[in-house]
């Protein structure tokens, strides 16, 4: 069981979602986040005052998957989220100790 955390360009979300559904990923949690890596921000001007905005809007996808789905999911995300430009985002993979479904207390892969 692994948790995949992918930070992507907001505009690629629909493609990523579709690619994940295609390989059989059933659930995910999505957040609007702000951040930056190597990508520099941009400048905004309000009544002549310049503001450097270095935290840019990104979308974070989190999902916990059984081991067999991890590699296909990573490939699906990379295929759908890549534009080739700086700012495309990152994928992090974490080990997960346990998953529990609150409704019926199922555990492990059955809870995913």
């Amino acid at each position, binding site marked *: 069981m692994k948790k995949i955390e992918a930070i992507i360009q907001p505009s690629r979300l629909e493609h990523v979602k579709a690619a994940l559904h295609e390989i059989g990923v059933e659930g995910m949690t999505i957040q609007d986040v702000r951040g930056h890596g190597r990508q520099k921000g941009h400048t*905004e*001007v*309000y*009544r*002549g*005052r310049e*503001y*450097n905005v270095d935290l840019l809007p990104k979308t974070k996808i989190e999902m916990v998957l059984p081991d067999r789905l991890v590699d296909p999911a990573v490939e699906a995300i990379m295929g759908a989220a890549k534009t080739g430009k700086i700012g495309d985002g990152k994928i992090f993979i974490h080990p997960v100790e346990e998953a529990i479904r609150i409704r019926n207390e199922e555990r492990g892969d059955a809870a995913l």
Partner: protein
Amino acid sequence: MKRLLYVLVLVFAFGLLAGQGIAQTSAQPKVTGQTATVSPTSSDTRLQELEARVAEAQSSGDNAWMLVCAALVLMMTGPGLALFYGGLVRKKNVLATMMQSFSMMALITVIWAVVGFSLCFAPGTSLIGGLGHLFLHGVGSAPDPTYAGTIPFGTYMVFQLMFAIITPALICGAFAERMKFSAMILFMILWSFIVYDPMAHMVWGKGGFLNAALGGTFPTLDFAGGTVVHITSGVSALVCALYLGKRVGYPKEPMPPHSVVLSVIGACLLWVGWFGFNAGSALASNGLATSAFIATDFGAAAAAIGWAAAEWVRNGKPSVLGVISGAVAGLVAITPASGFVGPMSALVIGLVAGVYCYWMVTKVKARFGYDDSLDAFGIHGAGGTIGALLTGVFATSAINPIFKNSQGKVLPVGLIDGNSGQILNQLVGVLIAWGLAIFGTLIILKVVDRVVGLRVPEEQEIQGLDLALHGEEGYTFEA
């Protein structure tokens, strides 16, 4: 603050008692509304009856228009200005900023009823009105021919009230995000008496020092409040910004507007409300109102283009905040001119004001480093001044034959009519407005600083005024 509250309540209660007497006196039927019923065959009588009916019809039309205008002008403060300013501050101060506009709607109305209207428009000296209309004594459904012969005096009173509300509300842009609420209330009460009432009386009151139509020494043309509303509020705003000092973190920390969306809605409401402000200042539903309506629209449009073009050239992008700020600057500048200039002059005034206010807000403010947070001076002070001076250039008797000699012959009005001296009169009006605003505001700030203190403590400023002063938040995501 407590003692002040008791005094206010007592004064208010007294006013209610006195008001009962007034209600009885003003309930008499209007003279124009009476119709003669004796000997219907006599042609004289029928003529009289016809004249009375015609007057009644005109009064009814004018009154309908003026009541709508009064409502439009109130809409400029809330929600217009509340949204315009509310969007420009940071998220943590949105409610406190809107509260400043809204509380003017309540506070100034009460003051106006008790004494404000009287100090502006009751017969008095050339500098301030008397106490003849204290507690609205004598203000009822009968018209007052001095000011507006075809509408109830009460309509005139309530229309003027809306101007008295928005003027102090405009100042709030300068001290946004850092002034105590109690200090703001006390400041506004005093400001209304010391700056607004004398200025309104001098320019619009009968026998006022600067009145153009009713016997002033220096006839200053101010159709809808370039000096009375915009210069007084804008210059007082600058004094407030300088006296209070900068916000914590200014200019190092970024303080961008939290929602230009709110400001766009606010600016649109201001533009629409301004038709009531300027066209309504004709005080009748007539051709002059139409002319002022057109000039208002044209001034706003040209200024929006002027500001955005200047920005486009300098920054490479025309901003949304730029076009709406430009439109407001144009509306400010056309305010004194609206009832005196033709539509093409309105375009010129708007264009000049748009570029000039852009320069004031971006260059001059940065150069001197004062924290006029929402540019109340850069737009209202600067736009009002340029508008008042340009009124002296473009005013024409073809639009408004306001100056006549003793034989009733129409005299030239502005520079384009050949009356170059009018610019001097405008300058006198502008200087008096600046002087009154500077000295009045300084004295008031000193007093308020001594009595309750002007600024919130630093930790409250960092926390945000919404929570610190009002115990609320503008945006709660748990709800």
